[in-house]
């Protein structure tokens, strides 16, 4: 029964998403430029790292292809989460314009509607670019069956962690309507942090990134395993396999926050 309901929700999500893709095609030039532009932003991001390495042999002991593995895996995870649910950042606008009221009257879960709304394929730009970087970095890894499992679970868990962060922090907008940028510090800030080896940060910050905003699980711990490196900060080795747990916990926490946010919601009346 629950299975059937979930499948139904996924189908609805797909339908709404398809609607928005067709809507975006009404301005084809803009659509193409947006996709290229998004790929460019993330592409230039990596060019930035590459230029940095023109001046260095290693960043805090990590070579370019090792940093590329960190960068590519985090960017992929972010791309997956952002494509699927990036629109959740906009709930402040829905509240202000009263659209959330309309959504609440429809027989589809609010979270599905909000996430699928204004679905955009332009984020494919990031996914493509991230896949290329990740693929290149992967050629330097000495693969074993277990490493393969860790790599796949890293991408899925990373997606879940970002899903949790985006949904959870967007809920801030149920309480305050125009402080949306506050969430960016944790979502995009978290994403930016994952581009670097985390041993460049002070240890207290690393502990925070492990247990409070768990972005360290997106790529840092599993990548240490893939690269066969000992943890330069001396954190327990067990953390390398804890990403799925971190992903599930983050997502569960986000859903609880979402639920209490929706309960707290009172219409603006406009």
């Amino acid at each position, binding site marked *: 029964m629950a299975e059937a309901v979930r499948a139904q929700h996924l189908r609805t999500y797909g339908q709404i998403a398809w609607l928005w893709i067709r809507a975006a095609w009404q301005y084809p030039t*803009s659509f193409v430029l947006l996709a290229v532009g998004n790929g460019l932003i993330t592409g230039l991001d990596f060019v930035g790292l590459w230029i940095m390495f023109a*001046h260095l042999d290693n960043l805090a002991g990590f070579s370019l292809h090792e940093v590329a593995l960190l960068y590519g895996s985090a960017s992929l995870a972010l791309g997956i989460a952002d494509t699927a649910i990036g629109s959740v950042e906009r709930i402040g606008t829905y509240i202000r314009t009263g659209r959330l009221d309309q959504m609440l009257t429809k027989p589809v879960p609010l979270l599905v509607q909000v996430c699928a709304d204004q679905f955009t394929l332009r984020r494919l730009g990031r996914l493509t670019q991230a896949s290329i970087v990740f693929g290149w970095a992967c050629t330097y890894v000495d693969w074993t069956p277990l490493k393969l499992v860790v790599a796949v679970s890293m991408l899925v868990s990373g997606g879940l962690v970002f899903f949790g962060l985006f949904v959870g922090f967007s809920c801030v907008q149920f309480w305050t309507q125009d402080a949306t940028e506050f969430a960016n510090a944790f979502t995009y800030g978290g994403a930016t942090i994952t581009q670097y080896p985390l041993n460049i940060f002070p240890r207290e910050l690393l502990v925070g990134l492990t247990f409070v905003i768990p972005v360290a699980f997106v790529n840092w711990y599993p990548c240490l395993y893939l690269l066969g490196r000992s943890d330069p900060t001396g954190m327990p080795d067990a953390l390398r396999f804890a990403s799925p747990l971190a992903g599930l916990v983050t997502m569960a926490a986000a859903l609880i926050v979402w639920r209490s946010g929706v309960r707290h919601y009172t219409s603006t009346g406009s």
Partner: protein
Amino acid sequence: MLHVAIATRAFRRYSTYRAATLAGIFTNSVFGIIYSYAYLAVWDANPTAGGYDAQDAVTYVWLGQALLMTIALWGGGTTDDLAERIRTGDVAIDLYRPVGIIGWYLASDLGRAAYHLLTRGFGPTLIGLVIFHISLPPSFSTAGAFAVSLVLAGVVSFAIRFLVASTAFWLLDQSGVKVMSGAFAIFFSGMMLPLVLFPGWLGTVANALPWASYVQVPADIWLGKHTGVDLVAALGFQLVWAAVLLTACQGVLRLATRKVVVQGG
């Protein structure tokens, strides 16, 4: 006088959203902290990269965060209003006002920039000063030159954003071009990585493009890297780009006006 009035109104309009401003300062500061540690790691591995030392690098990070909104690096600002008015056709009203359309939007964008400088500019700078002890301009005259450079940076950025918004005359929707131009602005302004690190021909090209006047030129002035003739040349570089781009705005607007008339508004 009229333009001052327009600028003041824009300043007030942006100052309505207090919580948004605070949230923005918080976010800029978080990014400032992240990049500071990243740059400290880079300059730890190569203490003279690009002719900066670690202190210069960290100062540069916080200046970048302070300028992000002030110079509207990602695009946006009052030119977004223009793009929307082109899409809806309301621009026809702007065109027959007895005030030049470029002057109108430039004034209101400078009003916006002034507000963002006072909040999103000073906020992160203060936090960088407290946490990372960033450098201040070495002298009053440097600070003055920095102020001039900031205004020129604002004008260059406005002109580019105006051109981007004008593409809506032909494409109806500026968002694609805006994202592209934002990507270039972030990369070539030195926001992502100081242009002093760009190697060889890439560095030469990046330093000659108008985007260099957004962050790299003002930051180098702040850091005291330009003095005497060099300083005049740096400001002149910004001034030339401002003049060239504003002239381009003028030309594009003339072409576009013809199109609006053909469409019948």
